[in-house]
């Protein structure tokens, strides 16, 4: 289950999307997220879904792999959809029993929200799956660098994000091991009682925190040994340059907006 989460994972493949400049991809994702919540209407979503499918195809990430990443959020999607389904007031009642009333508007709203969340996760997944975390944070560092002028410590922030990403798999493995070790000592993580269930987390969380602090400590010393100084300037191993692909991506964004506007006007 824990291993199914694909957000933050990198999937290596020789695709044009992988080779694109991270800044382009970050801006594209941002743009995609905004569009997702601004647009209305069935045909607009068809265009977005089609465009997402095109990008997935270009990125050479197996669809199965993408879908597996959605597993952990199924519950979230179901809850959101259910809330919208029952809470939305409307005139076209399709079903009514006791306090439960389902309206056509509710069905529409529920579907819209479910699609939005799924597309949102897929969209951000494409960014992280095609961009190594270091490149991603490197791209962010450049995009956010204007903030350095007003004293925001962007480099330190980017280093922190990079390290967090680096340690996610390590800590997930560790969590898995601790859960198994405590299960073997008879800990019960499947109790129905929510209070007991939360209490059962303590034997997992404490060792995990202790371990994370120990690792942080070790890492800090190791970084110091390699001459890291948060206040000093650093050179960069990576160099980013906009290329043809980035230009195409920009063109595509423009076309994308035009199509959506046309749909809005025509339909």
């Amino acid at each position, binding site marked *: 289950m824990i291993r199914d989460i694909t957000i933050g994972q990198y999937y290596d493949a020789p695709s044009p999307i992988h080779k694109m400049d991270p800044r382009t991809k970050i801006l594209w994702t941002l743009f995609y997220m905004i569009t997702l919540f601004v647009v209305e209407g069935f045909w607009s979503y068809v265009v977005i879904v089609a465009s997402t499918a095109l990008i997935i195809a270009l990125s050479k990430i197996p669809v199965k792999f993408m879908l597996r990443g959605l597993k952990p959020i199924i519950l979230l999607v179901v809850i959101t959809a259910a809330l919208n389904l029952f809470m939305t007031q409307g005139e076209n009642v399709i079903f009514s029993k006791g306090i439960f009333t389902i309206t056509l508007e509710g069905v529409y709203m529920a579907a819209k929200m479910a699609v939005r969340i799924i597309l949102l996760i897929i969209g951000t997944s494409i960014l992280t799956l095609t961009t190594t975390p*270091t490149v991603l944070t490197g791209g962010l560092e450049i995009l956010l660098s204007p903030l350095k002028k007003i004293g925001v410590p962007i480099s330190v922030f980017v280093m922190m994000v990079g390290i967090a990403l680096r340690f996610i798999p*390590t800590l997930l493995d560790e969590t898995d091991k601790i859960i198994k070790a405590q299960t073997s000592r008879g800990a019960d993580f499947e109790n129905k009682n929510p209070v007991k269930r939360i209490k059962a987390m303590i034997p997992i969380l404490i060792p995990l925190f202790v371990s994370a602090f120990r690792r942080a400590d070790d890492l800090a010393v190791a970084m110091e040994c390699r001459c*890291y100084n948060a206040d000093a*300037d650093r050179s960069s*191993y990576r160099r980013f340059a906009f290329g043809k692909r980035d230009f195409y991506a920009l063109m595509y964004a423009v076309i994308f907006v035009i199509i959506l506007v046309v749909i809005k006007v025509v339909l």
Partner: protein
Amino acid sequence: MNIIEAKNLIFSYKSNTHEKVVLDNLNINIEKGSFTAIIGHNGSGKSTFAKHMNAILLPSGGSICVCKIDSKDEERLYELRKSAGMVFQNPDNQIVATIVEEDVAFGLENLCIEHEEMHKRVEEALKAVNMYKYRKRAPHLLSGGQKQRVAIAGVLAMQPECIILDEPTAMLDPKGRREVMDTILSLNKEKNITIVMITHYMDEAAKADRVIVLDKGKVILDDTPQNVFEKEEELLSLGLSVPHSTELAHRLRKSGIKIDRAILTPEDCAKEILKHKGNSYD
């Protein structure tokens, strides 16, 4: 020439009740190009000494100089750390980046090395530890031995005079241990990099030119591995052991079988025993 010079080095810290002396008047010089192993049981002060060689800890008394730089000289701290690289026990906790080659570049980025030079050095360092073909991998998908070699490459790229390794093989399997040991030996022999390795594997210490035995923060023995492992009783009383081959040779000698030279490896041990077998044909 000495790369490391510890003079009357003392390190102590105060816990709530008493003062604990971890390093007690150490005088150790390490010569350029040598391979020194430091052994001692847990709590003998060996890791504390290692941390002094990189100015992670500063002496409470006496001094330690690395490449003629006093560890207390704050102005030259980065120069010192660049000359004496450090590799730690836990391979996971010293890899910073999410891609092998970027991790190797980390130290160089800190030193503000210019772009082309940096790429050249990363490539060389990865080739030297035999990890070049893994340069695009994520570190968590590597084996322990491979991770440790990446850590060594990260230090190597900074072109140090000396590499200090604090129990680099303690968390590895036999294959990983072999890979790391071979890498260390080749850096020492081929690139003439001074190696100081802390270990509690006696067979690894046996591969060094010199073995220093620490106990309670003091140097107890400091000699060639042959001479150090001759003193089996003394080592055992310090909670250490000797390689099984050495132990066997020692016992055979006690049982009246003449073995003249010091034994460190199974091959040597067998060779000496076979000499006696030869007698029967005379």
